[in-house]
């Protein structure tokens, strides 16, 4: 494997996103949402203005969990199928580059664009709030940003996998939307439904493990468990064994959500 080839593809993907202002647009969306949530997040409780970082992060988590998977899927769904459909894939593959290098280059470039806009967008907010945050709060906020990047990378990996499997761009975009619906909206409902239908008889023990089968849930647990104010608010402690809530373990699970779809994609893309 030649790193230089991966870097060439990755830097083209990254600069393409910088030049067409994709990175800027996404970063601004994140900044705007984060600021609005930080200042108005507690409006329901009858007050306006920044209150606590825990509440802010908890609100941001519920937003990001919808937004980032969608952005990542939209970013990555045509990575390969787009080149194939436009007709530029053959020329790329005729270069001294392996298919794996091409795939990784695409992924790394897109992931860098997504990570950059996430960190820039939320980082700007951290700077704005910095006078009101102590070190501990900053640490939590930093954890939130990092896990947001991981969440994006996991869904980007899924998107690139779809992009290898799909026969054309239309189908790839359909699959991307379906993936979003499944992991972000349907998955938790299914688990909840199973719990309710069986009157809590089924699945109590394996539920926490089932949550790991969804990167969006892993992201939620990662963030919520580290915040004392919020843990009780969400009532998560009651269903989730603390042993599983180790951030390193959850980080590893997230990493698996990045590596496995990419691995499947490269297996499928090898010829």
């Amino acid at each position, binding site marked *: 494997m*030649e790193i*230089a*080839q991966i870097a*060439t*593809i990755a830097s*083209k993907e990254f600069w*393409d996103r910088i*030049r*067409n202002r994709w990175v800027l647009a996404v970063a601004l969306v994140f900044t705007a949402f984060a600021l609005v949530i930080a200042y108005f997040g507690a409006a329901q409780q009858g007050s306006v203005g920044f209150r606590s970082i825990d509440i802010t992060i908890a609100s941001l988590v519920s937003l990001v969990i919808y937004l980032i998977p969608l952005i990542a899927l939209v970013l990555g769904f045509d990575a390969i199928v787009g080149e194939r459909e*436009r*007709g*530029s894939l*053959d*020329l*790329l*593959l*005729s*270069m*001294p*580059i392996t298919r794996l290098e091409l795939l990784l280059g695409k992924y790394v470039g897109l992931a860098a664009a997504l990570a950059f806009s996430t960190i820039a967008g939320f980082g700007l907010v951290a700077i704005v709030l910095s006078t009101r945050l102590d070190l501990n709060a900053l640490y939590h906020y930093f954890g939130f940003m990092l896990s947001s990047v991981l969440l994006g990378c996991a869904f980007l990996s899924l998107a690139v996998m779809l992009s290898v499997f799909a026969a054309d761009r239309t189908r790839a975009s359909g699959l991307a939307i379906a993936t979003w619906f499944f992991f972000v909206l349907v998955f938790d409902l299914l688990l909840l439904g199973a719990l309710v239908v069986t009157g809590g008889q089924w699945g109590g023990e394996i539920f926490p493990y089932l949550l790991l089968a969804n990167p969006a849930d892993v992201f939620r647990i990662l963030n919520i468990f580290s915040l004392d104010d919020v843990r009780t608010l969400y009532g998560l402690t009651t269903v989730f064994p603390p042993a599983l809530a180790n951030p390193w373990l959850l980080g590893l699970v997230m990493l698996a959500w990045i590596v496995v779809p990419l691995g499947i994609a490269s297996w499928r893309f090898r*010829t």
Partner: protein
Amino acid sequence: MESSLPTLNDAGASLIVAHGVRKHYGNIHAVDGVDLDIRSGELFGLIGHNGAGKSTLFKMMLGLLPSTAGDIRIGGALVTGRDFRAVRRTVGYLPENVVLYDNLTGLETLWFFARLKGVSPAEAAPTLERVGLAHAAKRRVREYSKGMRQRLGFAQALLGKPRILFLDEPTTGLDPEAIRSFYSTLRQLRSEGVTTVITSHILAEIQERVDRIAIMTAGKVQARGTVQDLREQVDLPLWFSVRVAKEDFEAVRSALSHLQVDAIEAHDDHVKVRCRREAKMAVIEALARLDGRVRDLTVREPSLEDVFFGFSD
């Protein structure tokens, strides 16, 4: 970048060898048992209808598509083998209907491909100049015409001084002047020892410009050789157009009466004579004996198109 491939610079030696190559998609036999032997330094034309299997064969030669059976070697190395990177670095490819990146400028496009090929980006500007695009170097490909895109695609293939060029329908979208300058570049490259494989369905365009051709129909190579070899193989008749005064028509007819002539047709101011190739010189001698009554004489050899239809019918 120096190549480690052994036979690459050996003019006249076998360079690209295809052996029993097949590509089947279910019941469709896109390429159906092709043997080819393309020699170092030659300009080789692959001709055939759209859908004859030329592009599929091309993609297999480049290792973009695995073959169902058979193998293809470039300079002795399998195109899909471990040495593929070394092979690729010696090859330039212009796909049919090349698609480049609209958001990049011409210069940026070449920088990108130069990096992938491991070539210095400093090669980009002179290469653009070589294909006549220096004036558009800083313009985005989005604004390029079809012909300019095609030339940029050609420029990309020329990066890194490849020893072998695979050009799939390279003159599509080019105006006659650009076609001319394109072939003059090819001749120049040939004099530098570059081997070129070119496909085309515009037969008139390549017949005088390639060293050897292979005719493909329905996934098979029907014939290969120089255009002259193929003319002889199909043994198509030639046409003489003999310009004479009307009162001399009979003289021509009787001068040719004892020869093996297929047909003699009288027109306004000339006689058309159709004969087999082996009678050609005898006909010319007989006409020469007509003591200046023949005012002009043209011989029409069967064109590549005639040859092509001779093979594909």
